[in-house]
């Protein structure tokens, strides 16, 4: 059970990405738009929206993103750590027309800094930009906030389909860079929780020989 199986031929490097954002900020639409993109090489009918995968190639390296959606309503907030504990990346989504949803994002960022992976890659999506087409979108404050936490801010619209590919390729690029720099190298997936049974130190006496 615990002995290391022979490493399976890994077709790609896989990463886990969690989606965080207040209820109804459009995070599900955003990801569906990304995954079901007409230009995607492999078109599969999407039968669910909570867990999605996307294959993409960054700098010649095939990458697979597992995208974990989370329930954004306030009452489920405390469950967050169960999902993002071992995530490689977090995409934080807020509604550009609703400042409260941005405050939720800052709350998650604080938590991620404390409880998530040290190297977690973060990106912030200012979504529903199509709703403010008439007005000037002021994202300066959000952008400087994003910079201060080492994340990138993208203005997106799931409806119009803008900014979505950019945000995911940015995440993928940064993930790949981190993975390259880490000692793990590209071939190893990060260790998962569970029992790992390691053999005891080899016995002092050599193993009994037979037929000699």
């Amino acid at each position, binding site marked *: *059970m615990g002995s290391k*199986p022979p490493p*399976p031929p890994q077709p790609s490097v*896989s990463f886990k990405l969690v*989606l965080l954002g207040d*209820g*109804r900020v459009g*995070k*599900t*639409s955003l*990801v*569906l738009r990304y995954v079901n993109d007409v230009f995607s090489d492999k078109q599969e009918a*999407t*039968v*669910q*929206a*909570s*867990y999605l*995968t996307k294959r993409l190639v960054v700098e010649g390296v095939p990458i697979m993103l*597992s995208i*974990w*959606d*989370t*329930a*954004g*309503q306030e*009452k*489920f907030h*405390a*469950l967050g750590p*169960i*999902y993002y504990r071992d995530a490689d990346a977090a995409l934080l989504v807020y509604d550009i027309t609703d400042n409260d949803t941005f405050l939720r994002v800052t709350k998650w960022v604080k938590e991620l800094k404390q409880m998530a992976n040290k190297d977690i890659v973060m990106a912030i999506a200012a979504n529903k930009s199509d709703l403010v087409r008439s007005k000037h979108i002021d994202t300066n404050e959000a952008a400087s906030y994003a910079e201060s936490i080492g994340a990138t801010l993208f203005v997106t619209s799931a409806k119009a389909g803008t900014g979505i590919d950019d945000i995911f390729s940015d995440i993928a690029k940064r993930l790949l860079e981190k993975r390259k720099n880490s000692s793990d190298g590209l071939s190893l*997936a990060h260790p*998962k*929780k*569970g*029992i*790992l049974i390691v053999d005891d130190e080899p016995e002092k006496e050599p193993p009994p020989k037979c037929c000699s």
Partner: protein
Amino acid sequence: MTKLFDRAFASSAEDVKSDIEISEKIGLLQHFVRPHHLDIPKLLHNEAAWLLAVKELQKINSFKSPREKLSCIMSCCQVINNLLLNVSMSNDRTLSGADDFLPILIYITIKANPPQLHSNLKFIQLFRRETRLISEVEYYLTNLISAKMFIMNVNGHSLSMEESVFQTHMESARLGNHTSVASTSSSQGLGTSTTGLNEESGDTEGLKFPFMDSETESLTPAEVKQLHELYRQVVTRYMLLSKALRKLSVDEDQLLNSVDD
């Protein structure tokens, strides 16, 4: 693994205790938690699909291997996903994500009260080969783990109600459980009718006995109206109760005496 099952599954006293705790808590929640308490949109209410999901989850103890147990969880989640897909297609609505999925899974878990929930989850996490616990299966397992966590830490806020209302509901559910133990034969019918009443009064009233401490002179016309409404409820309940007592052939005086004892 199946040979080791008896030793590895729910083998510690702590696990047994946790299992009983959760199961008892769910038993109480079953009395009053309704879909709207968990923000499940009306559009997704589908008793038939939910029942199917409940049945899948309840099968979890019919299997001994972590793989088979996991597949029960997966089937349950699959049913929910199919429901979400159908609703989105027939209403031309964006496919629901976790915002709708998790609340439904929590509701299903409450309805199902799956046997030994804690031990089953622990067992799967410990003994499923880690390389197999990736991706989609892990996602849905994580959701059930978080549903369990939600249930363990449930309070008024997480069910969109005042804490006092929540406590009242829990208390009356506890009382309901005791009476159902005492008379199992007739508890079925009585149980459902009382939960119905609880729901009505619980949503409008925070306290168990409102106006008990109020001064008669200080009542506003609106409150008098409310009081009248409550009076009607009390009378209806009293009538039902005495009818039930007559059926059980218990005399009212006899009951009063037994309370005094």
